[in-house]
Structure formats: C-alpha cells, structure tokens
C-alpha cells in the first residue's frame, strides 16, 4: 500500500474530510527534506512549537488530571532533544514536524488530527531505520516528561517516597501504580 492509498483510507475512515491539497501535501512526505539538514543546533519555529504542543496534549490530554501542556511537556521535549539527542534524531524530529506542517495539522479538525496521528502511529511501525522516528520521540518524551513531573506523577500514581518495607500484596480494584 503506498502512502497515497494509506491517506485515502484514513480519509475514508474519517468520512472523507481530507481536502485534496492536504492529500497532495502529505504525498510529498516521503521526499521532503528539512533545510536544517547539516545544522546540529536544534530549534523550532513558532508553528512547529505549536504543533509539538498540540500533539503532546493529544497523547496526554487534560482530563480530571493535568495534561501534557499543564506540566510543561512541550518545553521539556525541546530541552531534552537539545541536551540528550543528537543530529540524526533532531533531523528525524524536524522531518516529522515538517510533514505535520505539510498537512496543515493546526488547521485540521479534532477528528482529522486524531486520524493523522493514528496513521502516523501505523506508518511508524514500518520504519526500519535505526534513527528513532518522530512519533516514537514524541511519545517517549511526552510520557517521560509527564509521568515524572511533580503534578503528572502525583496525579497519576500513589507516590511513595520512603516505603520503609517490602511487602507482597494483592492488587485492589482500580488501584493505581506506586511511584517511588
């Protein structure tokens, strides 16, 4: 299945809401290369930052507990990419953001955005390159940034600073994980 067909399928799944220009733009996804190719410093445009924040929030949305944006995940991701990742991952991340720009991600409706991410998730599984793909970077850094932030951790888990004992226990219904 080529990319155009995949996109058509997603479009059909969503009730044909993708516009022709969007599909054409997404079609160029594969051949697109970022102008930042040889630049080891990593920075994002305002649009790219907005896209990153929206995707992070879609991965961990605000519910009755804080969401990714509430705990500063978008800035965390940029900082982590700068400090802990190198050029190949930077490029992979920028390529991913560029493709999101091509589909005008920020102009899409909520269900279209969901469709794009679902497509992205499935497409990512086909990537065999050793370089971590965009979606995987987005996910690992969003989850890391959220679940280890003070607000995210405390809202999600039962935080135990000093257990003081080691005990085999039975899980109660709906019991949250312990975090240490």
């Amino acid at each position, binding site marked *: 299945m080529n990319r155009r067909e995949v996109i058509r399928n997603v479009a059909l799944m969503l009730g044909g809401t993708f516009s022709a220009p969007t599909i054409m733009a997404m079609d160029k996804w594969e051949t697109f290369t970022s102008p930042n190719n040889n630049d080891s410093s990593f920075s994002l445009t305002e649009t790219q930052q907005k896209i990153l924040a929206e995707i992070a929030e*879609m*991965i*961990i*949305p605000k*519910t009755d*507990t804080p969401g990714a944006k509430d705990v500063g995940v978008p800035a965390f991701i940029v*900082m*982590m990419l700068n*400090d*802990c*990742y*190198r050029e190949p991952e930077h490029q992979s991340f920028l390529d991913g953001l560029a493709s999101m720009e091509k589909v005008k991600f920020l102009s899409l409706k909520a269900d279209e955005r*969901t469709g794009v*991410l679902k497509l992205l*998730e499935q497409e990512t599984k086909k990537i065999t390159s050793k370089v971590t793909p965009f979606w*995987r970077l987005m*996910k*690992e850094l969003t*989850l*890391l*940034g959220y*679940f*280890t*932030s*003070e607000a995210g*951790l405390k809202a*999600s*888990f039962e935080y*135990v*600073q*000093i*257990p*003081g*004992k*080691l*005990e*085999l*226990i*039975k*899980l109660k219904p*709906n*019991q*949250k*994980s*312990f*975090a*240490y």
Partner: protein
Amino acid sequence: MTKNKLKIMNLNIKANKNNTFDAIVVGSGMSGGFAAKELTERGLKVLMIERGHEIKHIEGYDTAMKEPWDFEHRGKTTNISAEERWANSRFWGLGSEEVVNHLTNDKENPYIEIRAFDWIRAYHTGGKSMHWGRQSYRWGKHDFEANAKEGIGIDWPIRYEDLEPWYTHVEKFVGVSGQKEGLEVLPDGHFLPAMPLFAPEAHFKNKMFEKFNRPVTVGRVANLTQAQDIHTKLGRGSCQYRNKCNRGCPYGAYYSSLSGSIPAAMRTNRLSILHDSIVSEIIYDEQKKRATGVRIINQNTMQTEDFFAKIIFLNAGSINTAALMLNSKSNRFQNGFGNDSDQVGRNLMDHQLGSGASATVDGFEDDYVYGQRPNAMYIPRFRNWGNDKQTAYLRGFGYQGGAVRDGWERGVAADGFGDDFKQSLTKPGPWSIRIGGFGEILPDPNNRIFLDPVKKDKWGIPMIVTDAAFVENDWAMRKDIVASAVEMLETAGFKNVTPYDRPTHMGLGIHDMGTARMGRDPKTSVLNAFNQVHDCKNVFVTDGAAMTSASCVNPSITYMALTARAADFAVKALKKKEL
C-alpha cells in the same frame, strides 16, 4: 534518618612532621576500605591514600533524596555526560544525572584501547563500593580447584577452607541478606533475613526445580534487611526499600567503604585518609630489599610527596594496581615492581554480562509489591556441574534477573494516545521477566594492560593501555547463556520469549581482576598464598588483581575475605618481627 556522626578528616600534611605510618593502604574502595579496617582494628596506624576527591558518607550523596522531577533530564544521559564519561556511559545508567558526577570523568582520565575494554571507574572516597550491585556470593570449592584440574592458567595457592572463616567474618560485618539453600555449588553464608521472590519468580523457581532440577534462590545482597548491633554501632540502619542505592544510601543500609569499613577504621583513631593523591610509584630500598613507602602526586596541585610505612597494601583496583607496579621501576625491579614473572598486568579477566532473555508473563494480575526490592533472583551455575558436561566450553555461568510489573514506560512502544491511554498507564501493567548471565572468563596471558612507552597523562604518569577480548571459550559460553535463558523462560510457560545479546567488550561486568595473580611459583605468579608480593614480602595486593581465576559469581566479598585474611597474617608477622 540515622545520622552517621563519624567524620572523615583530611589529613593535614603540613602539620604532620612525620610522614611515617605502620601501614599504607593505596585505595579506599571495596578492598582498600577493608584493609584499613582490619589493620587499624589490629592496632596499626594506617594511612589510606585515595586518588580522587573526598565524598562524605550521607552528606556527600547529593542526589540521594531528590524527587524524580528534581532531575532536569529525568535520568537520561546528556550528550555532555556521554562525552565526558565516554567509558562509564557504556554501562547502563551510569551516564544518568542520578550518579554521573560520582563516576570518573574519562575525558580527563583517558586510557588507550588497543582492544576495547569498558573500564568503569569511580575516583573518590569509597571508589566503586559506592556503586556496586551488592550481590554477595561465596566461591565454591570447585572454583579454587578448577584451574589445576583443567590445566588452565596456574593453580590457586589456597582452597575454600582457607577462606571460609574470613567469608563469615566479612559477611557478619557487611550484612548480607540471603536464603540458605544447602547447595555445594553456592555455599551458604552468614545471612540476614532473605528478601522475598515475587509471585512469577516463585512460579519460575518451582518450574525450574520440577523440569530441570535447577535451584533458583533470591539474590544474596549486601543490604541490611535487619540491621544488627555491629551495623547500628556504625550508624547503619535497615533498608527502606527505595532501591536508589546507586545514589548512595542516606541510611547506610547497603554496604560500602563509606558506610562500613571506613567508619569502623575511623573509630579506632588510627586511620588517616589522604585524598586527591595519586600514588605514582612504590619506593623500593635496594639495601633493605623492601618497599619503604610510596610517592604521591596531588591531583590538583601536582606536588609530589613521599610517605613511609612498614607494610603497604595495594588496593587501587586491579588495573590501577598493576599499572602502579609496572610504573615502579628500580635496579632490582627493572621490569616493574614484583614483576619477575612478567605476569603483572596479564590475565585480565572480568565476567560476561549483557546476554540472556526476557519474556512476558500471563496471569498473576492480582499480585503486586509495595516497596522496591534492591535485589534480584539468582540462578546458580548448572553447567559443567554435576552430571552436566559441555563440550563447547569450560566452566559456567549464573543468571541474575527477575520479574516486574510494567510501569508507564510500556506506553512508549504500545499503540494509543489520548484519555483512555493516559488512564490505562496509571495502573500496573502485566508482569514481565528477564534473566541475564554472569559468565566465567578464563585467564589468558594475552589479555592484559600495560603502560604506554611514550604517552603520559596530565600528571606525567604513563598512560594505561588495555588489550583484551573474549576468546573462543567465552563466545561459546555466551551462546549458551542466551540459548539456556530462552529454554528456561519457555519451559516456565512465559510468552514472547526474546533473546538479547548486547554487543559488548570485556570490562562491562565491572569485575576486572587477575592482573597480579596469586600462585605457588614466583616464576609464574606475582603473589603468594597470603597476597604478599613474592619478591618483596612487605607489599600485599588484595584487590581484584590477586585473582587466579574468576569464578562466575560476583567477586567483592571474596576480595574482602582475601583482604581480611592477608591483614591478619600481616599484623601477626609484624608482631613476630617477620616483616
């Protein structure tokens, strides 16, 4: 929190008119700490010399009480750390900001690799005893006999019975939690209460016994499950099950030189510690035919100074101990101190690490754990043991590993995002299990370290060159480590059994040893049965360098037992004026 009131004081050299002690101990790590304790407790005035900076027990553990969100990079290795700690960060997690500042900056302390060696170093008070995995297993009788039986390397000059009382002595002081099993392959010791196996591990244990007649036990670990008087008197408390040992324990609940041997030695008022002082050579007196002291270079001021003692214990870590001997040349020892045999620096060994298998576990959904166990389960060696006879390789391996309920991290590779996904990750995931092999490596004279003839470090000391690699026996064993792990996990009924075999070098086991081996014959060994340098009896080597073979069990308590035994011998000999 239990506060350790004992303070480690820096010796003020200028105020000390006399640089003479009864004993000098080079190194403050696992074996150096123990040497200092044993020698001071027997009445000797000891100078311990540490090449790195001072870390104080408890207050020096700067990350110990940090919350997860206090770490800017949340435990990931930064690019800067990876460059500065280029060797240390080859090991899992050692580049993390939880620990990285307590590991040696490799960029400032480079070594040369002809064949790559993962040299993990911690140049500070306590050395790697602050960072060890704490697994504590006695060697078996077979471990001391194997070289002679198989014609590998040279024979050990001692047997299990020589070390047995010293194992007990060490275990009581250190505090080792474990389960007595009555196994010949893994002798029982003096244990504190054992930690529990988790439900899938208990299932695994039963299956392994049923299908293979292979025992499985909980790890024997130097964490105080129940602190005894001998521990609390030093300010050590029981384990709080945070499993943050790698940061240094503010409760002193796991054993290190910092929490155990150094406070014990300080208590005698006979220990002085000199930090930031790199021992560059052993001073040999040609007339007296004995070593009279050591020369140090202050790592910050570059100043040199000599210190003198009746006996010298070398505990710098096997590679640095060998390098120090090789750099100590005199008319008598033109090939390096104590190196008539040409064995100093050779027979570098380690343990195989980084291969095994993992699996997912169905069931046990109701089973969960409160607290974090700083330990694993242990599968003692079963190869070339009893009726098992392997044709592809000699010796054997043990496995360490265990079962965990997956945390939020499972979400990274899983499909999904959004409300339900977020909610699901707040609950414990399914169990998974992993076992990894620790394999015995044979002594090989071609696996070695030596000094570069030209290149020097910033203190003018010749740079250390590593030239070692796994040989055929090791590769054959490694293949079986993976295959047997797969077989055992599948037999236990676990799912998605996945082998792993991380590309690695020697050194990753962080059990470097063998570079100044013990033996009976001065022509083929460096040390005698009491760890004395054959040709200069007032110098003892009791760190990993002394090892004649490697066994497959973690070595630290064996180093400590050898050290205590040698210290006892040395003091008795001194009193009889035989040294």
